[in-house]
Structure formats: C-alpha cells, structure tokens
C-alpha cells in the first residue's frame, strides 16, 4: 500500500502557510471562491452529505445530515458554533490545526457557514489554548482586511462575521449545549433536548455545532469531491444497517507510555497496534503495553490483546468500548497500576461533572471515593460490583442524565473492572505496594 499523503496536516511544517498570503499561494481559498461563485448553499450541503463525513468531535454524527436539520427557509439569524473546546484528555488534534494551519480551519468555517446560511460563526476555543487563539485571531483579522470576511465575501452576495470566544475552561464547555450556554455568558450547564440546537440553539436561534477538524475536512471534500473522500477509510459494514461508514482520514493523537507521542493523519481504520508500533514508536523503555484508551477518557479501556481493533467508528465498540471518541490513543505500560489509571480518570470526571444531574453529580464523586479508598488499600470486594453497577447506570442516554458526560464517566470504570478484574482483586488482597508500579501516575498529555 502506497504511503498515505496527509491532507489535513499537509501544511504542518510550513509556517509560511499560517499567513493569508502563504495559504493562498498554496492554493488556499480557491475552493471557497469557487463555491461562492458556482455553488448554492444546498449544493455544498449535498456534497458534504454525500461524502459520508461524520463529525470528529466525538459523537460521529453525519455532518451533512446535521446541517439539513435546520428549519427550512428560516429568516435568520442562523449561527455556526465551532467547538474548539477540546478538553478531552490526551486530545490535541484541533490544537495542531489551529496553531499550524488556521486558514484551513477558517476556510472550512466560511464554507460551512455558507452552506447553512449562517450570518455569524462563533469560534469557541478552549481557554488554555492561548497561542492557538492568537493565531486564529490574526488569521481572522487578515481575512477582514482582505475583504474575505464581513460584508460580501470575495465580492459575492454572502456576508459572514467570525467571532472568537475564549472558553470558560471546563470540560463541559465542549458539550454542544453547554458550549452554547457558555457562549451566552452563562454557566456551561448543558440544556435539555429537545429542542436540539439546530432548531433552537445559541441566543434561541437555529445553530449548528461542529468540530474544527470536521470543518477542515469540509474544505477538502468540496475541493476534491465526495468520491475522493470515500476512497479513504472504511465503508459501512454491510451487516450493520445502522453503520454510516468511517470515511476519510483522521488525526490520531498518540500519548502515554510511547516512544514518540504526537499526532498523525491516517485513513480511518488503522489498527491500534499499527498506530502504536509504527507511528508511536512502540512502548517506551522497552516495556510491553498493558492496555490503552482508544479515544479519549470517555471511551473505556482496551487490553493489549485487543490492540488489533481498527480505529474507525465501529472498531472500539467491538471490544466493549464506547466508541472511537476523539481517536486520541493513550497507552500505558505493563508496570502501570490499573488502580492508578482508573483513579486518575475518576478524578477527572468527578472534577468536570457540571453537577446538574443527580446521577452524574453524585455518581462520579462516589466512584472516585471508592477508587480512592481501594487505592489506599481499604477496598472491599463488593466495591467492585458497586462500581460496576454505578458505572452501568450512571448515564443511560436519554434518560438518567442530560448530557453524555455521565455515560463517558461510566465506561472507563466498567471496562477497567471487567477487563482487569484479576489485577483489582490482587490489589484488594495485597494492598498498595504489591501490585505493578505502585503509586506511579500515568502521565497524560493534553492537560488535566
């Protein structure tokens, strides 16, 4: 198989492309120009819909389909919210995009806004991303100066404003309705649905929320066509009528106990093992892997024996994980205590639960207390069944909670216990200090 040429990351090491001149010299904004001249908004939507592009923010919802949920013939305003909150631990694909190639993201934003007839696009960016925020703002300023944002973009009928909004520094600000509340200046308390944002979102107007990577893909899809996009990745499973396929390339983040942590763009469907061995340089210090998180904390764990799963939208589900998530792989080596790893994750969710829903607010804190006690050496066997049960029931959607955080908080707990039960039992019996690498903290990239 010929080596894959990166598309989204093709300007990764070309800092000159961060400027408008550099980006245009590389062929940038030609797609936008053509779309504004030759295509109607609905045509852009159709191209995106037919490409099979699914959201890169975690849920994998078909992008074009989402756009068609907007009310037809709405008098406006309609908003686009770009979800660059990116607070999922070990996830930094958007960070690379906005720091290294801001104009690609902006071209995607303008194209998507045109397709959905948005008049304003809010770029909601994680508070901690100072450098990326400044880069984006500079790029936006350049566009305004060049008449490519604001009134009559590139001489067309279409006008759009892009506003950068620095996030409120919480994981929950990335949940789409939490983001909208936060954008409106309130606490990021996710909203109950319905109404969905496409009907009533930011400032009570129809709103589409998309991830920057999703929008960057839109540029290449409109440029090269849906067929090109579909030539990459994994087609739908014919045996699963609900599978919409995993087309295109994906930015995979690799972190944890690997020799070469970082980011790599590959067609969807690379196996976890290949990602680790070929692109992540293998496990560090000559050790073996014990397991990994396939796509951000909320997805649960897989064991080393499960590393042959393809990292597409369906793969992780085959080994009892929630899904692909953000495709950020975190590997931990054989000396790591699973109790430590789980403790770290439970701390994260208990800290980040917004606190609205009873099951999530209390459940995340309770699970943390139990795991903390186990870690101290005061665990009991029944704690494992309580943990499993709480994790199973904490966030059944829809139903027990308003947003998906609670569900995500349950997966690492239940998968850890199911897949590493023997290690937990040994730990319970022998206490800290006897199991593998006592007290060692899993180093996580991407903050938190």
């Amino acid at each position, binding site marked *: 198989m010929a080596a894959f040429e990166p598309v989204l990351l093709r300007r990764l090491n070309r800092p000159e492309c961060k400027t408008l001149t550099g980006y245009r010299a590389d062929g940038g904004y030609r797609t936008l120009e053509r779309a504004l001249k030759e295509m109607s908004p609905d045509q852009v939507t159709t191209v995106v819909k037919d490409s099979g592009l699914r959201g890169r923010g975690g849920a994998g919802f078909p992008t074009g389909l989402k756009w068609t949920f907007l009310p037809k013939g709405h008098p406006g305003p309609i908003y686009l919210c770009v979800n660059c909150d990116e607070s999922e631990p070990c996830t930094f694909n958007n960070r690379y995009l906005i720091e290294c190639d801001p104009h690609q993201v902006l071209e995607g934003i303008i194209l998507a806004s045109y397709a959905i007839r948005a008049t304003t696009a809010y770029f909601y960016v994680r508070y901690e991303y100072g450098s990326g925020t400044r880069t984006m703002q500079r790029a936006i300023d350049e566009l305004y100066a060049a008449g490519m944002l604001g009134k009559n973009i590139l001489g067309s009928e279409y006008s759009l404003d892009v506003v950068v909004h620095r996030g409120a520094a919480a994981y929950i600000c990335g949940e789409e309705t939490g983001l909208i509340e936060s954008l409106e200046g309130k606490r990021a308390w996710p909203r109950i649905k319905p109404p969905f944002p496409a009907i009533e979102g930011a400032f009570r107007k129809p709103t589409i929320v998309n991830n920057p990577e999703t929008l960057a893909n839109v540029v290449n899809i409109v440029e090269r066509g849906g067929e090109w996009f579909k030539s990459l990745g994994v087609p739908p499973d014919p045996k699963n009528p609900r599978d919409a396929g995993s087309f295109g390339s994906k930015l995979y983040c690799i972190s944890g106990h690997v020799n070469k942590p970082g980011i790599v763009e590959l067609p969807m469907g690379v196996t976890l093992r290949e990602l680790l061995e070929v692109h992540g340089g293998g496990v560090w210090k000559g050790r073996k892997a014990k397991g990994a998180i396939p796509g951000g904390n909320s997805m649960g764990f897989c064991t080393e024996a499960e590393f042959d799963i393809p990292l597409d939208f369906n793969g992780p589900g085959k080994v009892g994980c929630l899904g692909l998530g953000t495709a950020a792989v975190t590997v931990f080596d054989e000396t790591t205590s699973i109790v430590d790893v789980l403790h770290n994750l439970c701390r994260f969710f208990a800290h*980040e639960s917004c606190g609205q829903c*009873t099951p999530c607010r209390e459940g995340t*804190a309770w699970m943390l207390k139990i795991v903390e006690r186990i870690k101290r050496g005061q665990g009991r066997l029944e704690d494992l069944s309580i943990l499993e049960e709480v994790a199973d029931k904490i966030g059944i959607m829809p139903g027990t909670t308003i947003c998906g955080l609670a569900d995500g908080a349950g997966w690492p707990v239940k998968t850890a216990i199911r897949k590493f039960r023997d290690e937990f039992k040994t730990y319970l019996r022998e206490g800290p200090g006897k199991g593998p690498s006592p007290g060692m903290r899993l180093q996580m990239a991407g903050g938190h």
Partner: protein
Amino acid sequence: MATVYVNDKAVDIGDERLNCVQAAERAGVTIPHYCWHAALSVVASCRMCLVEVGERKVDEKGEVSTVMQPKVVPGCQTPVKDGTVIRTADAKSKDAQQRTLESLLLNHPLDCPVCDKAGECLLQDYSFQFGKAESRMVDEKKTPPNKPDIGTHVGLFTDRCIMCSRCVRFTREVSGTAELHVVNRGTHAEIDVFEGHPLDNKLSLNVVDLCPVGALASKDFLYSQRVWNLKSANGVCGGCSTGCSTHVDSNKDIVYRLRPRFNPRAQGHFMCDEGRLGYHHVNDPARLRQYLVRGENGTRAVEWSEAAGVCREKLGAAASRDPGRVWIVFSPSMTVEEAWLLANYARQLSPFVKLAMGPVTVSGADDTYPKDRKGRPEAKVKFTIRAEKASNARGVRGVLAHFQKDRLDYQHFLQAARGGQVDACLISQGQSPAIYKPGVEEGDALASVGFVAVQEMFASSLTDRAHVVIPASAFSEVDGTLVNHAGLAQAKRASCAPWRGTRTDGQFYLELLERKGLVHAGNLRKEIAKVIPAFKPLESGDLGEYGVYCEKLKDPA
C-alpha cells in the same frame, strides 16, 4: 380530547398541555419530583421523576397495542398526548427512583432530628415511599459549611441541599432579583450569593417553601416548632389587597408561621415576605385582652356582655337624641360578615346613623415582579404586592353601599368629630399595627365626643380616649370572607381561639344586635347574598378552595 394511561388507569385530560408528572397527578398517581415546579422553568436535572413512557395504539381491526420506550425518561420533561402510556411502578421506574434517591442520600447529613423541614420534607417522604433503607456508601460524606446569612430572612444548611436549583430559578424568574446562584462544579456545587449581595428581596422567603428539603430555612421559623405539632388552617393574608391565600400554622393558639396556599385566582403559588411575617402581632402579649369601661370613677374591667350593654345604652341614647350625630367606623380589614353585622346594628339604631370607612393605608405604588437587572419592573407580571394595605376594603365598602348612599370615609368622620358634630361613635379599628397605627391627632379629634367605643388590638391614641375599650380579634381568630382587589371573595378559617375572656368581633356585634347564637360565616354569607345583590355569588355559603368572584365589587376599570 386526550386520554392518558397511567399505570393502566385511563384519565381524560381534555385538551390541556401537561407533562407526565401532571398527567399522573390527574390519575391520582404521584411521580416523585424535585426540580420541577409548576411556576418555574423545566430543567429536568434531578432525575427523580424517571418513568417509563410509551404509546397505546389501536389499529383498524380494533387491536390495542402498547409500545414502550426502551429507557426511562424524565416525566417532567415529557409531554403527554392522546394515547400516552405512563408506568411509574414497574421494575425500571422503581429501579431509577431508588437509584436517584440513593444518590441524593449519599452526601445528605440525615440530621432530620434537628432539621426544620422534617415532617414535610420531600426527601424523607420519597425515601420512605420510593427509596431503599440502607446506604451502600461507607466513605465519608462531604461537609460543606453552612451559610446562615445567605439572606436577610433565609439561612442555608448547605449540606442538606439536593441541588434542585428551584431557589435559583425563583430568584431569576419570579423575583427577578437573581441573588442566588450555583458555585463550583459537580459534587462541590453549592448554592451561594455574591459577597455583599445577600438574598434580600420582598419575595425571598418563598425559596424556603420551594426548597424540597431543609436546606433553605426561614430565620423567623427556625427551631420554633416541629411541623407535625402544627395545625394548619386556610387563611387569607391581610397584608394588602392582593389577598394571598395562606396556610396559617399554629399550635395551641399561637401562630408560628404563614405559608402561601396555591390559588390561581388570587396570587398563584407565592406570597411576599411582609405578608408572611405579618403575624407577630397576633401573639404579642401587649395585645388588649380586657373589656374596659371608663367613667367618672375611673376605669373598670368588665365582662364582655357588660361592655356590649354599655355600648348599646349609650349609642342607643345618642341615636334617639340625634342619629345623624352617631357614627360607626368600619375597619377595612374586617370580614364581610362582621361588616354586615355591625351595619345591621347601626341600622337597628336608626337609618340615619352615619357609617364611615376606616383608614385605608396606601403606601407607594403597586410593586410588581419580576424585576429586571436594574430593578425595574418587567412587562410580564408574575406577582404584585399592592399599594393598598387593606385586605377587605372592597368587601366592607360593598356592605356600606347597601346601607347608605353617601360614601363616608375616615376623614369625614374625623372632621365631624373635630367640628363637634359627633355625639357618640363606635370605631372598629382592628388593623394590624404594622399596617395602621392611629396618630395622636386622631385621639385628639375625639376630645369632644360624648361617647367613644373603640375596638382595637393594642392600646392607641383612640383607646386612650375611649369610654369603652373592646379588644379586637386577630385575623387568625375569625372565620369570614375577604374580597381582594379583583373582587375575589375568599373564605378564611379561624385557626386559633380568641384570647381568653374575649369574644370575636363578630360575636360582639351579635351581642350588640342582641341576636342569639354563634357567628357562622356560611350562614351569614347566605343571609348577605339574599339581601345585597353585589354579594349574590356568596349564596351557597361555601366559597370553595379558591374563592368566588363578585364582579360588582371590582374596582371600575
């Protein structure tokens, strides 16, 4: 017409738009709920109301099939329509209810023995009805510090809070003052205020009623009574002409608190702090409790019947000399029934005895809520504290208008008294001192009146001048009818006996009339309705839970 099936029982809900909690209530089934409240926005966050929901369909052949949704859903957020099936007591719902309660109790201090809410706490009630007996948490509970001064009238027991956010929504949506908010995330979330901006608005104590648990407590009521010792009677607030429906909670004839009683016709769910706290005078030991007769030989305490006898004799004598120089003054807070009896007595004396309305306090302008962020009233009004601080001015006026063409008010009376045109008078001034306190000049106006009888709750410039002092009864001691600003006639019930040795105002008037028997509000209403057309709606004698409108008593638009 829509039919909903709750635990297999069909209920017809007409064309109302209801959620599952409301629809189930119609079927007599309680879906436990905390965050949902009819007067507040829906947040569906407590997840206490999880139920199974489905749809019942009948096909062409008449076959009935029910399809249930696979997962439980929040009943408060789920609207019902024709054919909706709700199951609240099957395994799935029960499991969800138990889980939510277990979660809520994880960090709950369970200090019911010292909690004001115990006995009327929804956490107790639901735990008993829907929960499990034991907690599986062996770890330590969190113990956030209390905030006893979160509000002027309200304190917060932080650890008891279940984060339903009702209080926060109340201050945002109803009072509009937005003092309360949530700080911190997750299990560390707490209700709080900004430094230097305590919960302090004229509706603030409503959050105590809204709080399903004992987290928010009224400083006024705190630690004064166990609620199961309280006896509750339906009342009507005497604070202003809104006439909020209330519960008057008392124990052994001492009133301990007032709470709003839901009445869509009067005020809705809430009441103002001033009205709520306007009961303290009832228990005040300084209240007059003796009938006094003042003569040349000084002042004597007498039996109530003797006091009535003296009044009858003096007023009668004056009326037979010149009835136009005899005045009877009616308090705007007396009941319709009392006004009726007193007016009847006046007419028994003579058709020419003057009937005057007592002082009606008007303070400022109507105060409406919510307020906007700058404290200005918003267009859509949810609550009004009225400027007119009299609970029954319309009812009393309605009675007086029947007996006398001229409308005489308190100023007319005082003028006549000062001008030496009054020979004898009976002034019924039973208003709470917080609302009306007679001034010195009013007492002075009576200097030249030959005979003065005053009915008062406390010693005042009027009782100083009185030849007969009649202790007046408080709102909690009388049955009767009050008519609010909109002409709504509501019944209030006595919750306490009159002070020992005294009789209620109405009973005293019966004595003046030399009528036998006891005051019976229902019978008197029938009597009044027969005679005065404006009170026709009272004819059944029973005003129901919410009261009846007397259109003719409404202020002209």
